[in-house]
């Protein structure tokens, strides 16, 4: 039998707490008897009665805490003491049924040991600081905020890479992790296709097409639009490729990006050589040879990417409704348009959707202008005035500065639509409508009055105004894609079954001659 005595000088606990601690301490394995009490005269007498008093205890003062443990062996007494010390540590618990709230990431992490991801959407001037704190606390980060410097992005991704963490963004609008949609994302089937995208709406579009073709998503990871730029160097895409390559739930991997920097594109393609899973590459404007050389599957369009991924994932090609392009419709519309109605005007919420439609137009036409052209020669002089074929990304900084994203606030696009509809040189206006978490609750509905009015005005001028709408969404989204399509049809809009088809239809409608 061994007795362990600890006196904590000048340490006060109230007697009720100590009685409860004593009770628990006596239940610790190996403890014959445990006595935890303030060193009052009365308590010392109690100890004396059970024969546990020592001169050391006798000298302890009122404000000292006594811990006396009788155990089978010194080792057991030591273990019991540790267990007793544990009993003194108390954890936060909600009080009065109110939810615990935390002002900082540190304090949230301290109290929520299960926390594993931070979604950061505070103003860009504060976002980097919060992301750094999250990473330092071993949280993965999804940074929705934009206006974060590239220097900060490089530093954050360096920290994340060293710690093996995700650093999605800045300006990362979409992710689906373990079937949980974050920020802007659609409700899609769970499956075995992993997507990593340096393009938010491009990733959403592929996930939606995959769902439409009968496939499903294992993970969808947005890296932020600058990830494949020269300076950032694709750090996050490379890390996620490796992770998806190891992820048991993932069978096929899709990479999607707006046109990447050449050197970074090469790095990414090189990585494909190290991977044992099929990789479908859809870099808007990218070339087939490089992808095939790296052992990847090339996809020119988002639709093609989704289709290839679905087939590679094991779905029988003959069972897929591919929504082939409506060629008779093209002929029908071409006839309706006057000779001077030569131009496409693309008004997009989604940057990659805009890019994709624009690249499809560029295959046919030389005079394609934009606020986000790859070639600076085709930069619009004034982003508020279109020229020739014009494709506008309303999600770009020139339009979002100090305003919410057009997927939430459609006002600037509605105004621009009215302007374009009056232009007699316009043959077709193409617009995307993005559904899903984070988006406007009725993106088609807010545009419909303007559409009806514009079409009527054009008719009065003896001109057919063709409008192509594309709804990015699934049957599981709220509102569902069908509900939105019905509204488009009732407003006299031609709808496309994919962003790719929308782009192809638009460029077909205004094709002259032949």
């Amino acid at each position: 039998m061994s007795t362990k005595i600890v006196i904590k000088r000048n340490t006060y606990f109230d007697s009720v707490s100590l009685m409860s601690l004593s009770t628990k301490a006596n239940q610790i394995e190996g403890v014959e008897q445990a006595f935890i009490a303030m060193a009052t005269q009365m308590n010392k007498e109690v100890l004396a009665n059970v024969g546990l008093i020592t001169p050391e205890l006798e000298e302890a003062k009122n404000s000292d805490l006594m811990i006396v443990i009788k155990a089978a062996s010194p080792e057991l007494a030591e273990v019991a003491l540790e267990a007793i010390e544990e009993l003194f540590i108390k954890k936060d618990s909600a009080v009065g049924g109110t939810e615990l709230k935390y002002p900082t990431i540190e304090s949230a992490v301290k109290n929520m040991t299960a926390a594993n991801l931070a979604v950061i959407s505070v103003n860009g001037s504060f976002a980097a600081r919060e992301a750094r704190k999250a990473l330092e606390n071993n949280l993965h980060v999804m940074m929705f905020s934009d206006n974060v410097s590239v220097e900060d992005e490089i530093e954050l991704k360096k920290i994340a890479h060293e710690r093996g963490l995700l650093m999605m963004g800045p300006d990362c609008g979409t992710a689906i992790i373990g079937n949980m949609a974050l920020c802007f994302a659609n409700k899609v089937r769970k499956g075995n296709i992993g997507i990593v995208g340096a393009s938010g709406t491009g990733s959403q579009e592929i996930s939606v097409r995959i769902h439409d073709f009968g496939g499903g998503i294992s993970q969808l990871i947005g890296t932020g639009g600058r990830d494949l730029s020269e300076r950032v160097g694709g750090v996050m895409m490379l890390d996620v490729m490796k992770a998806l390559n190891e992820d048991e739930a993932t069978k096929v991997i899709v990479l999607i990006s707006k046109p990447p920097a050449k050197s970074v594109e090469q790095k990414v393609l090189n990585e494909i050589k190290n991977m044992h899973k099929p990789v479908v590459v859809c870099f808007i404007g990218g070339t087939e040879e490089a992808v095939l050389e790296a052992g990847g599957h090339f996809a020119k369009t988002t639709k093609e990417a989704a289709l290839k991924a679905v087939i590679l994932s094991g779905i029988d090609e003959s069972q897929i409704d591919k929504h082939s392009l409506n060629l008779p419709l093209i002929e029908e519309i071409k006839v309706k348009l006057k000779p001077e109605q030569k131009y496409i005007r693309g008004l997009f919420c989604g940057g990659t959707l805009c890019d994709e439609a624009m690249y499809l137009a560029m295959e046919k036409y030389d005079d394609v202008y934009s606020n986000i052209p790859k070639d600076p020669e085709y930069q619009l002089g004034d982003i508020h005035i279109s020229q020739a074929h014009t494709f506008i990304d309303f999600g770009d900084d020139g339009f979002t500065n100090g305003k919410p994203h057009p997927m939430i606030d459609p006002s600037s696009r509605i105004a621009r639509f009215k302007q374009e509809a009056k232009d007699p040189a316009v043959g077709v206006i193409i617009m995307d409508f993005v559904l899903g978490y984070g988006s406007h609750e009725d993106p088609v509905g807010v545009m419909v009055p303007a559409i009806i009015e514009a079409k009527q005005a054009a008719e009065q001028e003896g001109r057919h105004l063709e409008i192509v709408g594309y709804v990015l969404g699934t049957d599981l989204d709220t509102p569902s894609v069908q509900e939105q399509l019905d509204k488009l049809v009732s407003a006299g809009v031609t709808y496309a079954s994919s962003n790719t088809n929308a782009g192809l239809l638009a460029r077909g409608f205004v094709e002259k001659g032949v």
Partner: protein
Amino acid sequence: MSRINELFKSELHVINVGLEMFKDDILKQKGNVTHLEWKPPGGGKPELIAALDALEQEEIAAKIEAANKLAVERIVNSQPVLVGFDQAINVVPGMTKTTILHAGPPITWDKMSGPMKGAVTGALVFEGLAKDLDEAAELAASGEITFSPCHEHNCVGSMAGVTSASMFMHIVENKTYGNIAYTNLSEQLSKILRMGANDETVVARLIWMRDVLGPMLREAMKFSENGIDLRLMLSQALHMGDECHNRNNAGTTLLIQALTPLILRTDYTNEQKIEVFDFVAMSDYFSGPTWMALCKCALDAAHGIEHSTIVTTMARNGVEFGIRVSGMPGNTWFIGPAQKVVGPMFAGYKPEDSGLDIGDSAITETYGIGGFAMATAPAIVALVGGTVDDAMNYSVKMKEITTTENPNVTIPLLNFRGIPTGIDIRKVGQTSIMPVINTAIAHKDPGIGMIGAGITHPPIECFEQAILAFSQSMHS
């Protein structure tokens, strides 16, 4: 397995910082999410964010952490014991017959608030330095009176804090670290000098306190062998439902319980003893200053630790609010404008009658009781206009800006967690959460006194200045 792969296999537990709609979307999917009550650090001011970042550099942060650990250990381990009572002139360092100590950071006569001016003139009459209030005002303005903050003399003073040479003081000794703190005796509540009242009834009470109450307590404490362990008593008072700043019912009972056998042994007449017991019985505030001295005694032991960002003083003079920080030793004050106190008023008074926040009593919050221990005192909730949940949440919230919990002073309703201890200027800067202070309201004009009670907060400026100064000192 890489951490990214681990994440793919885990259930998500998201901390959402920013737009609340992202939290709502996660909840719609039945996910786990906590939305931060986030505010821009440093109030969003770039120079403050830069200063906070500078203090977070690894090497500097490590030095601060070590210093703060020591500082809070000293606060927690301090054992303030009431050892006696005596006149200020006999015990308070630097006290002279023409010295007037006051609450808060340094202030000159011309700038003093109404209640403080009222208290100063009343004290000068009480000391016999002026025959009436008018003459006292002239004397105060003449330059012959030395005005100095209580805090710069190991003292604390309630409300105006006005302390003159012949007033009786608590003497509280820190048995762990040896330093001593002093504070005035409670005049009880309402029409009293420290609230700015100063007519003949006020002065007559001060004379009685000087001639009967004070000397009796001084003699009584001579019969106390080891003094009265105030921290033990404080712990009990908290468990009995006091927060020991605005509510002192239990603490006063405990204190007089300890003093009574000692008082009975003194040579004073029964009539005089009855007067003293009646005086204590007429108000629960008797022990209010006692806890302030305890807090001052513990916090002084933690002041002057190099690199420590722990606040050791919060005090107001009715015009300005000042804080002192451990790592900025001596009497370096960081100052901002005193705030309004929001709370119920006595019948007949309106908020516009209120003087601004005043007194050294915020020393109790600096230690971790008062507003910080609101959860111990559900009965006080009416005073601060909220629910019991609100009261508990004040205490829980204060943990966000403090360094540790004091295991020696615990809160039953919060599962016996210790009081939030060691306000860290960095945490205040990062969270924009301000310390909550329970306090009384004095009338803005001299001569009237207490008109209500409620809660208030320091001005952010104190903390901003402290953070900037600290950041500079650490990098120079």
